[in-house]
């Protein structure tokens, strides 16, 4: 994609600008989400939509702007949950940006920096959701969007172990989990929890019907808690599994788990410190997964200890009772 970058086309664009006598602020464009299309003079304008959520009123306004500026009258929903207005003439950048600004819509970023976070629905309305993924995405967007890094830095939030936002493939991903605890006196031995657990972490005692829990198989999804009719299974605590160094693209890499049960209020610290480490250790153009491979995961973990100590280690097993 590099050669489609507006940053690499500055000279050509400048020539065109002189002929039309217009001025465009290139400092704005450099970090902005304007991507050169195949077609002469036409760009894709990528909007900043953290977590892929948008107020309907804003969407209506964006539709009008897209209709006005897209030469083909089309938008595209990107894989990172952004709304992209296609076929926009660069001569109209200033107008489209100012119209978008009026309705409070910002343009996304490209290049080596913290990108707009993606997120699933999470606990607000998804029945499986354990964490407020949308709230987290909003927070990360506010605090970290655009922070320069050696290469792109993609974050995402999934609300549960189904991991619809694919935190395993992110530079830094957060996936919701819950620790189940069981209280014998409340249990009626109905066996529903062993049916509900898709990981075979619970089998029912053949005599009493009560659960026998295997913590090694538990992935902290909370299905047992939701299914139990008597609240014998309860939530002890909620948090995030933290994953680092994943990416997709030509040479996908799976992330490494670095912490479990990191509480919500330590997520910002985790990102802040990780970006700090990445900027100190990463080479230009190197994704953090490769930095970690080169420098060693232990160095990273040592650096992160003040934050990750608020969670549990990666091999944490729930006692169950």
């Amino acid at each position, binding site marked *: 994609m590099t050669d489609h970058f507006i940053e690499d086309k500055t000279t050509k664009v400048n020539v065109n600008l002189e002929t039309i006598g217009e001025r465009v602020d290139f400092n704005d464009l450099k970090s902005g989400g304007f991507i050169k299309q195949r077609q002469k003079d036409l760009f894709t304008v990528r909007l900043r939509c953290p977590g892929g959520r948008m107020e309907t009123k804003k969407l209506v306004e964006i539709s009008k702007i897209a209709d006005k500026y897209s030469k083909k009258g089309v938008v595209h929903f990107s894989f990172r949950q952004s709304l992209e207005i296609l076929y926009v003439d660069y001569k109209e950048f200033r107008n489209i940006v100012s119209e978008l600004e009026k309705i409070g819509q910002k343009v996304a970023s490209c290049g080596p920096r913290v990108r707009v976070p993606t997120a699933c629905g999470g606990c607000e309305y998804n029945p499986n959701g354990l964490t407020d993924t949308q709230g987290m995405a909003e927070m990360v967007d506010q605090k970290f969007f655009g922070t320069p890094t050696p290469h792109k830095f993609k974050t995402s939030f999934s609300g549960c172990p189904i991991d619809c936002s694919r935190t395993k493939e992110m530079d830094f991903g957060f996936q919701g989990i819950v620790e189940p605890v069981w209280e014998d006196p409340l249990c009626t031995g109905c066996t529903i929890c062993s*049916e509900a657990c898709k990981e075979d972490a619970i089998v029912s005692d053949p005599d009493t019907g009560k659960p026998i829990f295997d913590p090694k198989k538990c992935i902290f999804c909370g299905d047992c808690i*939701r299914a139990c009719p008597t609240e014998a299974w309860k939530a002890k605590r909620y948090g995030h599994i933290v994953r680092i160094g994943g990416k997709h693209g030509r040479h996908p890499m799976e992330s490494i788990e670095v912490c479990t049960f990191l509480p919500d209020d330590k997520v910002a610290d985790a990102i802040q410190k990780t970006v700090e480490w990445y900027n100190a250790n990463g080479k230009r153009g190197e994704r953090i997964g490769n930095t970690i491979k080169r420098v060693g995961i232990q160095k990273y973990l040592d650096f992160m200890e003040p934050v990750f100590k608020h969670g549990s280690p990666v091999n944490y097993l729930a006692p169950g009772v």
Partner: protein
Amino acid sequence: MGEVKANAHLDLRGVMCPINFVKAKLKLETLEAGEVLELVLDSGEPIQNVPKSIKEEGHKILEVKKEGEHFRLKIQKG
């Protein structure tokens, strides 16, 4: 566990998610608060999903019995 008397019955064997839940919900709507619905559900997906949705809607599961490949539940309308 004492036998609870049911005010209505619904056999949802062979009915798939989420239609089974919707049927249970509609049936519960015909009852008064405090009345009891007896439900029969298949094991697998139905028993994984329907009880938790019923709980989420504020009803109470009073009794659960496993009968071979299916479950018999008594639900009190919330």
